[in-house]
């Protein structure tokens, strides 16, 4: 299937170097879903695939993505144009159940961090182990980048999605650009 996160065509890359680049992504429909097993099964019906139950994992299918954030919390992604239909479908699925579905499409924004030094650059602000055995391809987690909370998803060995609250993004990006100065002089 097509990648859910695509580079924003109209925006110049935030950073472009041989070793690492940072590119803003096109808008997406994002829903925050929280609920117990019954509601999870209902949402799976609306999505067309089961929510990932293994900690720190992601599931994709039918152009949509579900990211595990906690034992009862998922971030659901869909193409931007489908937001209204997607939100209505998920809300209809959990009607009458104890669950929460919130449109956070405009709360968060993501960048793609790619290149052979992507993990190195992220580790300037992200304090977790990003070596492949500890953080394999496909792993997704909420963590910190400096003092900002971020969602980090490893798409490939040398590519990460870094999603954070949009008002935090200048803070996160400036810290990463600052760290990248070390690479540009090398």
């Amino acid at each position: 299937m097509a990648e859910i996160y695509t580079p924003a065509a109209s925006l110049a890359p935030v950073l472009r170097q041989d070793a690492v680049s940072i590119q803003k992504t096109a808008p997406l429909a994002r829903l925050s879903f929280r609920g117990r097993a019954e509601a999870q099964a209902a949402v799976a019906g609306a999505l067309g695939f089961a929510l990932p139950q293994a900690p720190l994992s992601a599931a994709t299918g039918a152009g949509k993505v579900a990211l595990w954030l906690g034992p009862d919390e998922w971030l659901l992604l869909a193409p931007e144009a489908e937001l209204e239909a997607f939100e209505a479908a998920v809300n209809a699925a959990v009607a009458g159940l104890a669950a929460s579905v919130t449109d956070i499409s405009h709360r968060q924004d993501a960048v793609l961090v790619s290149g052979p030094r992507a993990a190195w650059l992220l580790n300037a602000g992200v304090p977790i182990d990003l070596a492949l055995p500890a953080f394999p391809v496909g792993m997704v987690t909420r963590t910190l980048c400096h003092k900002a909370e971020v969602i980090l998803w490893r798409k490939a060995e040398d590519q990460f999605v870094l999603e954070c609250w949009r008002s935090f993004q200048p803070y996160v990006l400036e810290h990463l650009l600052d760290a990248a100065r070390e690479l540009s002089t090398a």
Partner: protein
Amino acid sequence: MLLISCPYCGVERPETEFRYGGEAHIARPADPSQLNDEEWAQFLYMRTNTRGLYAERWRHAHGCGRFFNAVRDTVSDKFVCTYKAGEPKPDLDALARASQEKDAR
């Protein structure tokens, strides 16, 4: 950096992702209106504040968001174990003896 193992995520994460939540296994009184002020203050404020192994609540605030319980040595700041909320409190005396034997070796 101090690493704490989150029982929900199943991984070790740096301490900065976590928030401290006070002593664990303190049950809220079923009917607070039946308590006098002293009993209520006992529930609200009085903690065992052990020197040594201490069962306490932690929250993986910048991770899965879940509260869990941990046994930590308040002298060395070493985490002995972590376990999910709702699981029984481990035998702290046995854990203390085990960690002493481990240190002695």
